């Protein structure tokens, strides 16, 4: 077996085996130290495996196979960096947690699944990896076991399982067009244009993956689940786990076929989500909730880009969407780690932390000369100069505003003691390294995905394009901070709170159905029905030709 195949297989398998090894107490004791190394094979695979390598792990009829293309490699590499940084951070963050053993198992399983979705090539393995990353992430968000975390966990699981049901229906319809039992994703998608259920498949796919990405109104679980998890877990949940939805859309949508209606619908949902996330995020009082709503908004941007690609039938946009998503992985991961850093910093010493966090936030909005600006420039390509492109560019002003809000909340959250003004080196180091990578790495990827020279990003016209929304946002933030109205805090999960009003109604409905149980378990009823069944069967079989 060559190196490329070994690395691709090792990326998801090593963390999975480590999770299994946690069954032994001796491994469990050192598990926090394994979190960062477990993601290293994934990073090596992203760096060393040549593009478009295909590895068949198990021959037909299983056809378990791996495939690393440009979008997959970009997301894999970005995710691996965050997993390593957050893993290092978690080893210190959880040092005193008595239940860190269980946390590490969920972490390693989520890690295995998240690498899996980026690199598997066949439909069944994708569903397996997708289910693994989705369900194991529940363990991370529910770790703290507070009343809030329990509610978040139930909402998350309910929506996730609903999404899984939609996706399996879509996959079965998609796969049944091809002669193999377990087709490759690209072969199955190639059959899509001749499928009798084209629109049904697209609807199920888009809704199933949009749930994972958190497009409005399927975003309700995200502000709940991402805010209640321990800090490093929030970082990977908001940074990486939601990208399972992004890769799902990139892999399963027929991006090479121009589908203007579907593309437009996805773009509208994306733009609405982008602004909705910002608006709701601005009302939040907790820095992690602000970040979670910002993730909702950013995933709206990615959905808009993918929608634009669908309108034009432009499969090259997949790499750009992945690039934007990878930029978000690193920035959002670093921003979440900052929440833990700030909380452990003394109020007097918090300025440098706020400075770096602010820079990360502005990069997310596309501040010129940061990695985020390149991500914003890259998506201008497929979006063009139309209304969608304009609205997306303007949403960066909102992101700036939201990040300003985040920094203010971060300042207020500093609770460290003056004797230890900054948290330990072992927390600071992974955060700072990740932040630097987040700001710098897009520079190396930009030429690869857009095909343009890096110098073009520094051209005055491009600097202007990205600077205007950021300046606009900063001005707005300043104005609002001076004399803005106090916004009422919208409860996290917003529309969910309305949906939960329906809970008692549903319970009453179920109880009504439940009473049927008591009726059916009466002897007289069952006996009469049995006699009825004999007659019904006899009548039916008589009618046969």
């Amino acid at each position, binding site marked *: 077996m060559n190196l490329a195949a070994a690395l691709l297989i090792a990326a998801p398998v090593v963390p999975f085996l480590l999770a299994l090894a946690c069954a032994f107490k001796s491994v469990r004791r050192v598990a926090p130290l394994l979190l960062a190394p477990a993601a290293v094979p994934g990073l090596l695979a992203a760096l060393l495996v040549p593009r478009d390598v295909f590895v068949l792990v198990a021959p037909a009829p299983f056809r378990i196979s791996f495939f690393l293309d440009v979008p997959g490699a970009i997301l894999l590499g970005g995710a691996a960096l965050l997993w390593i940084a957050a893993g290092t951070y978690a080893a210190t963050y959880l040092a005193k947690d008595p239940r860190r053993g269980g946390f590490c198992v969920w972490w390693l399983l989520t890690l295995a699944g998240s690498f899996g979705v980026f690199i598997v090539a066949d439909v069944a393995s994708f569903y397996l990896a997708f289910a693994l990353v989705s*369900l194991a992430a529940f363990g991370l968000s529910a770790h703290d076991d507070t009343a809030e975390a329990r509610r978040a966990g*139930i909402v998350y699981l309910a929506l996730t399982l609903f999404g899984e049901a939609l996706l399996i229906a879509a996959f*079965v319809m998609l796969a049944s067009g091809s002669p193999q*039992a377990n087709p490759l994703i690209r072969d199955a998608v190639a059959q899509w244009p001749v499928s009798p259920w084209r629109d049904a498949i697209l609807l199920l796919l888009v809704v199933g993956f949009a749930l994972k990405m958190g497009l409005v109104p399927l975003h309700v679980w995200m502000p709940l689940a991402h805010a209640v998890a321990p800090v490093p877990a929030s970082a990977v949940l908001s940074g990486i786990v939601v990208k399972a939805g992004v890769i799902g859309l990139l892999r399963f949508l027929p991006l090479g076929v121009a589908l203007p209606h579907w593309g437009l619908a996805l773009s509208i949902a994306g733009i609405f989500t982008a602004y909705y996330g910002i608006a709701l995020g601005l009302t939040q009082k907790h820095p992690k909730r602000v970040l979670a709503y910002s993730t909702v908004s950013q995933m709206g941007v990615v959905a808009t880009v993918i929608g634009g690609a669908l309108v034009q039938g432009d499969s090259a946009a997949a790499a750009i969407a992945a690039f934007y998503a990878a930029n978000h992985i690193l920035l959002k991961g670093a921003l979440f780690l900052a929440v833990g850093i700030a909380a452990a910093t003394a109020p007097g010493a918090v300025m440098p932390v706020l400075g770096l966090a602010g820079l990360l936030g502005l990069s997310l909005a596309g501040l010129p000369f940061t990695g985020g600006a390149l991500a914003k420039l890259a998506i201008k390509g497929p979006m063009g100069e139309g209304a969608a492109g304009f609205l997306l560019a303007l949403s960066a002003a909102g992101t700036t505003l939201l990040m300003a809000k985040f920094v203010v909340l971060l300042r207020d959250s500093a609770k460290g003691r003056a004797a230890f003004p900054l948290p330990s080196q072992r927390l600071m180091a992974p955060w700072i390294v990740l932040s630097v990578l987040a700001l710098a790495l897009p520079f190396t990827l930009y030429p690869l995905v857009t095909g343009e020279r890096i110098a073009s990003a520094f051209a005055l016209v491009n600097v202007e394009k990205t600077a205007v929304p950021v300046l606009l946002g900063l001005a707005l933030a300043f104005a609002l901070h001076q004399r803005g109205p106090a916004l009422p805090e919208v409860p996290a999960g917003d529309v969910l709170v309305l949906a939960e009003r329906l809970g008692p109604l549903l319970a009453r409905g179920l109880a009504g159905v439940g009473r049927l149980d008591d009726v059916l378990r009466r002897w007289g009823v069952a006996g009469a029905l049995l006699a009825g069944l*004999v007659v019904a069967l006899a009548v039916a079989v008589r009618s046969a*030709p």
Partner: protein
Amino acid sequence: MTVLAAHASPLGLLLVLAVIVPLLGLAPLLLLKARPAERSALVFLAAGLAIVCALCFEVARSGAPLAYFLGGFKPPLGVGLRADGFSAFMLGVTAVVMVAAGLFAMTAPGADKPRMPLAFWMLLLGVWSALNLVYVADDLFALYVALELLTFAAVPLVCLDGRAQTIAAALQYLLFALFGSVLYLLGAALLYGTYGTLDILLLAQRAHGEPALLAALALMTAGMVAKAALFPFYLWLPAAHAGAPAAASAILSAVVVKAPIFLVVRFWYDIASPAQTAAVAPILAALGAGAVVLCGVFALRQARLKLLIAYSTAAQIGYLFLMFPLAAASAGAGVWGAIAWTGGALHLVSHALSKAAMFMAAGVIAETLGHDRIAQLSGIGRIVPISVFAFGLGGLSLMGLPPSGGFVAKVMLLTSAVQQGSWWIAVVILLGGLLAAGYVLRVLLPALQRPDGNLVPVPVARWREMVALALALGAVALGFVPLQPAAFLAIGRPASWDGAVP
């Protein structure tokens, strides 16, 4: 039918042994004291497993059904025993669950008194012999004997503890099973009077849609449906399966209710014509859908763990009946009908393994807590983590999430439903998975949380938890079955079973 066994197979004696050996195991139990009797029962369980393994191996090796004629007399004079791929499959599944139940019920080496009364071991062997006879008998009267033996061995398992509540449940079970037997016997008598034979293969040749045949099929099917506790005839199941000791519940839920379903398949695919089968299939599927949806909702409302699992059995049985219309169309549907067969069989075995594991895990939980009230299960995951893990893995298969046999089965049934345009079946399958998730997570989520108060656990033997875990891991391992019709199941079956129909 191309599969008439014209002569006995060289190793056909294995069929007789599969039925006789568990019965032979009863003899020493009558003579020995409790502990040696238990050991002797385990020896016979192992012997039975070896015979079934040999039988399955022989069917797979020869690619043809095994056949044996008692006393050398061929039907209609004698009684034929026959094991095709589907029968061998059922024999195998049953053997695995039986041996696991035996290991689970075994007394710990150092314990001073036996865990289970002697009667348990006798009934266990009796149930096994009866089940094996159901799977291999080709004669409707031999099948009647097998069904009666099954009922009379299974019913006392329900009330082993002798409490008034479980005795009432056992009586209810007995009465309803007898209803089923009466309907079956009426049908068999009609057939004998009309065709002069009770051999299934001969009946298939002689019967051509005469009113007597149709009436008999309707009566016998209704009888089997009552015994299988298909919706809406599940009234006896929850109390009976929840009242029995864990090892017995595992057998009852995992394999005993499957035997009548096996016979329904035999009636409609070995005796009736495809057109007749296609005509009744929607009725059976409608009842199946009712089971999946309504019994799933009922399971959500249970307050006790064992009742919840029992209602889940009533719901899961429904999937097997959803298979009928999908497979019935197979004459025209080719490979999509065959995949429904494989999906149904796979659902049957994964449900058997996962449900047995869940009942055993529930038994351990009830033992360590002294109760099985779902509202008070918080933190149980910290006390018996292996059992909760086994329960979770079993639940994974019920929910139809990968990797598990339940997932592959669901994909196969969905594929078949989608290909044949049976959208309502596809929706029921998906809805059933969500309901299963609801009732499994109702137990699993509190189990993973912090304990509410101080739990004072009673210690339980680790290896009993391991038996449950092994079964659950088996259900997970079935998730690696390839997504295509299984050739083994099609051995000796009509051509539609392997999808080779043009």
